[in-house]
């Protein structure tokens, strides 16, 4: 009979104590894994929504556009770029965009806005905005001729306009001349962000190009959407190679949306804090039960030492008992946490009804997704499992050392 077998039998000997320890390890492990998966899901969904609605995970711009955005700082040869990008399998779609600032006016007054020209044929499939229409419809290719636009609920309310109403956009073109365009509202959206619902006008790409004087082969930005956001690092290198020699710069979403990038980074640190707190609390139960187990068995340990068991072997036996508890507790906890995360990922947790007027919390003017779907990764499972297992082993050191710190003769005599 080896030490593992002996340790396992000792664990089964006091089923209640073992069960309490297992439950505390497993529940800490499960909760930590679920929370991490949930936070991952919120972060990735919010970032992906932002990337899909705006300029993709990878964006090509004129080198000077970041510092002083203006219609004259455009990206040329967009068609060629699209053709080459279509050969990179990781790129799901390419979004030419025309972004600008201006003022829209209705009979009720004028409001400063940001406008975004998008290709309705692409955007309808990829942009979350298309799924957040509360009235009317999203843009369709025919809107290029009809000058149809969509606006947010708050902007519509401020301008006292509704579906079918006309507004006038005033902006400057590539030559710096003030230009105007009459637009017709075909849809009203609600993204849950005051900044976007109250200050964004989305229109067909062709209309925005015409307004600011760009050709069909030019755009202020070209966004690349990735099928797998984790492939960003690899694809960005390919895109850089693709545009080498052209007067453009390639950016990651993290550069263009620094507030989201900071939020994600702080969220990762938050994961670790949450994990630490949960597992720290669970560790007291683990320490208590392991230590109790050792103290209750002083006589047994004294007898084993009397028979000639070396202190090292006895300590190894006690330590192995703790490791077995840790492994079993981790396995149960990870299974439970993973099952919970996968079930929540499948069915979703919808918190949209829990916020007032659909106003979600925002990060960098972008609404955080309130349709929560945890994302479970093997890395999370390995991280939580390793953390709990290592902690269990660290906690076991003190009881292990205590197990042989006994006076054999006195202990046997006292009992």
């Amino acid at each position, binding site marked *: *009979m080896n030490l593992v077998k*002996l340790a396992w039998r000792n664990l*089964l000997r006091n089923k209640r104590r073992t069960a309490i320890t297992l439950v505390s390890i497993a529940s800490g492990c499960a909760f930590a894994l679920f929370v991490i998966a949930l936070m991952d899901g919120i972060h990735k969904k919010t970032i992906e929504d932002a990337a899909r609605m705006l300029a993709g995970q990878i964006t090509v711009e004129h080198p000077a556009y970041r510092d002083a955005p203006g219609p004259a700082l455009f990206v040329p040869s967009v068609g060629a770029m699209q053709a080459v990008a279509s050969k990179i399998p990781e790129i799901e779609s390419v979004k030419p965009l025309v972004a600008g600032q201006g003022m829209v006016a209705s009979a009720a007054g004028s409001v400063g806005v940001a406008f975004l020209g998008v290709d309705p044929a692409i955007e309808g499939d990829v942009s979350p905005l298309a799924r957040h229409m509360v009235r009317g419809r999203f843009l369709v290719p025919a809107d290029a001729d009809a000058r149809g636009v969509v606006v947010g609920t708050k902007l519509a309310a401020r301008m006292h306009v509704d579906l079918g109403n006309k507004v006038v956009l005033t902006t400057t073109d590539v030559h710096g001349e003030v230009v105007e365009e009459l637009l017709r509202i075909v849809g009203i959206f609600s993204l849950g962000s005051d900044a976007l619902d109250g200050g964004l006008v989305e229109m067909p790409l062709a209309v925005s190009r015409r307004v600011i004087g760009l050709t069909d082969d030019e755009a202020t930005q070209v966004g690349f959407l990735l099928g797998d956001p984790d492939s960003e690092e690899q694809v960005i290198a390919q895109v850089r190679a693709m545009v080498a020699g052209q007067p453009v710069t390639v950016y990651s979403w993290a550069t263009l949306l620094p507030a989201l990038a900071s939020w994600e980074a702080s969220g990762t640190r938050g994961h670790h804090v949450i994990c630490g707190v949960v597992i720290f609390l669970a560790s007291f139960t683990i320490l208590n039960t392991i230590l109790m187990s050792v103290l209750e068995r002083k006589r047994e340990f004294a*007898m084993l*030492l009397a028979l*000639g*068991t070396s202190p090292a072997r006895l300590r190894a036996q006690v330590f192995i008992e703790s490791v077995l508890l840790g492994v079993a507790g981790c396995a149960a906890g990870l299974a439970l946490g993973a099952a919970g995360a996968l079930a929540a990922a499948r069915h979703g947790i919808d918190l949209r009804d829990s916020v007032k007027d659909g106003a979600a919390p925002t990060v960098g003017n972008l609404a955080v997704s309130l349709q929560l779907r945890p994302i479970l990764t093997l890395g999370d499972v390995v991280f939580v499992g390793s953390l709990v297992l290592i902690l269990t082993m660290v906690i076991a050191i003190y009881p292990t050392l205590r197990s042989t710190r006994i006076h*054999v*003769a006195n202990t046997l005599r006292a*009992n």
Partner: protein
Amino acid sequence: MKYIVELERVTKEYDLGATKVRALEGIDLTFEKGEFTVVMGPSGSGKSTLLNIVSGLDRATSGKVRVADVDTSACSDTALSRLRLEKIGFVFQSYNLIPVLTAIENVEYVMLLQGRPPAERLKRAEEMLAAVGLDGLGGRFPRELSGGQQQRVAIARAIAAEPVLVLADEPTANLDSKTAGSLMDLMETLNREKGVTFIFSTHDPSIVARANRKITLRDGQIAQAAESMITAKAS
């Protein structure tokens, strides 16, 4: 090696804070191989302390102790543990079997610590269980055995590793007279046939009657030594 155990002016004091209690006082004693000795005396006379010092479970405050030619006074805890493992068998009053091991695994345990091969351990353990009359009960856990059966397993464990010395502290105290008698028969046979040295600490007159040497302790000193193999001298 003439003597299995030699004690020379052994004293043991327990420090109880304000006072010191002297459990053994200047004991000079030797035990030859093959003795079947009983150490008697009232409670608190120092019987268990004497056995603990002989076994290395406790250390003398002063004096010298040699067991199987090893000066235990100078040994480290690890060396004492090794000495017990290789030379000494124990039979405790309350059996002290390992509860999570079956009878045969309990008997194997000391041999396992000695590093003997599994097949040899198993064969020897089966022989020992048969010798103590527990043939066929090797698969039972201690809780599934009666007190007498558990003590038989303890005796089998004590002798399985072929020690030169068996120390038995009140081995029949928790047993009925019939079971106690049969176990004493068994130990007498082992002493006679295998030459195993036994030192008992007991109040039990039936054990005293079987001993070929009797030592009486009183207040930590040898009060009386009798029978043919007497080598003790009171200090």
